[in-house]
């Protein structure tokens, strides 16, 4: 069977001060994604290779890596599309590397929590026996943003986040918008404090690379620009209108 070479970034914190590349020849099977090749390396060639993965079907968001310079889900990126190789496999950019292809994601987890990505409402007035109904049009308002799987490819693609990691980033803002635009949610004002901060939506310069990198069609860049419009409107209202009229 034909083979293809993977040049995989290796970083062993016990011994290395910087990553190096190691080459592995793997079978070039038509139905193999990069993740299948990594699993083959781990099982057959080198059990010391470390990487994250779980569902191998583009749902869990664990297996994000940099493939030939582009942020990709390794389960959805096929070997044949990069033949004849060699294929460069590196950890996601813009994050500290723990080992080999494993990155440190605590920063993203904090940012995700900061935008309160859940439905906020005053439930004291809700009738517990009734449902909160939604029309298809109301569902359409936020459905696209709800497809985010927290894979962090958008953070890896974003030069703003790469240069200044204080920027809250594409996925967190897209998820904030997912709840802001939900007809059942009442938490937009609470999220605005985080979003309208200097490190919030205004950090974004609309490079648009997050949207191109997103494997789920979320369009974080669009979400951020829409959030900017809301933040600017609210700032103008706060400046011009008396409190009771806002």
């Amino acid at each position, binding site marked *: 069977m034909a083979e293809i070479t993977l040049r995989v970034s290796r970083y062993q914190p016990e011994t290395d001060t910087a990553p190096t590349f190691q080459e592995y020849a793997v079978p070039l099977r038509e139905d193999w994604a990069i993740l299948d090749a990594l699993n083959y390396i781990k099982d057959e060639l080198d059990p010391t290779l470390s990487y994250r993965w779980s569902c191998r079907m583009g749902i869990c968001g664990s297996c994000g890596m940099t493939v030939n310079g582009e942020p990709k889900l390794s389960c959805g990126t096929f070997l044949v599309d990069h033949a004849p190789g060699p294929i460069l496999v590196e950890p996601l950019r813009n994050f500290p590397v723990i080992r080999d292809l494993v990155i440190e994601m605590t920063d993203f987890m904090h940012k995700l929590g900061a935008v309160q990505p859940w439905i906020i409402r005053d439930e004291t007035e809700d009738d517990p026996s009734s449902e909160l109904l939604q029309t298809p049009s109301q569902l359409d308002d936020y459905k696209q943003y709800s497809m985010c799987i927290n894979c962090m490819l958008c953070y890896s693609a974003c030069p703003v986040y790469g240069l200044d990691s204080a920027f809250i980033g594409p996925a967190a803002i897209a998820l904030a918008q997912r709840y802001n635009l939900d007809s059942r949610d009442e938490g937009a004002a609470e999220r605005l404090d985080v979003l309208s901060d200097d490190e919030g939506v205004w950090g974004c310069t609309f490079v*648009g690379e997050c949207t191109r990198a997103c494997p789920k069609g979320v369009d974080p860049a669009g979400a951020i620009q829409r959030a*900017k419009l809301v933040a600017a409107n609210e700032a103008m209202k706060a400046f011009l209108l008396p409190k009771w009229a806002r």
Partner: protein
Amino acid sequence: MTELRQRLYRQRVSLFWWLSKPTYLLFVVRELTSVAVVWFVVYLLLLVRAVGAGPESYQDFLDWSARPWMVAVNAVALALAVFHTVTWFLVTPQAMVLKVRGRRIPGAALAGALYAMWFLVSAVILWLL
């Protein structure tokens, strides 16, 4: 935990990150072309000042504008401003979500409306001239 953090490898962004991808380069060029827009604002202010200072200074302004190097500067600035406008019109539908009767207006229609307005305003200005 502290020990582990110290052993993390921190990736650095290269100073030339904007050359690493065509889309990054397009973004940087789009941002830089805003200088051309600033130039036209300054040029307009100079024109207004010249008109305000009387016919003689207006004639001086016209003579200054007709110099070959000024024509060249303005031609280049126009090309850059057009590039700036077109690249912004390309991304505007992403930021503007308009709904009519519960349905989102498609991006192509929105961009089309922007171009139509652009040409309409240009036509009105040409007619005034």
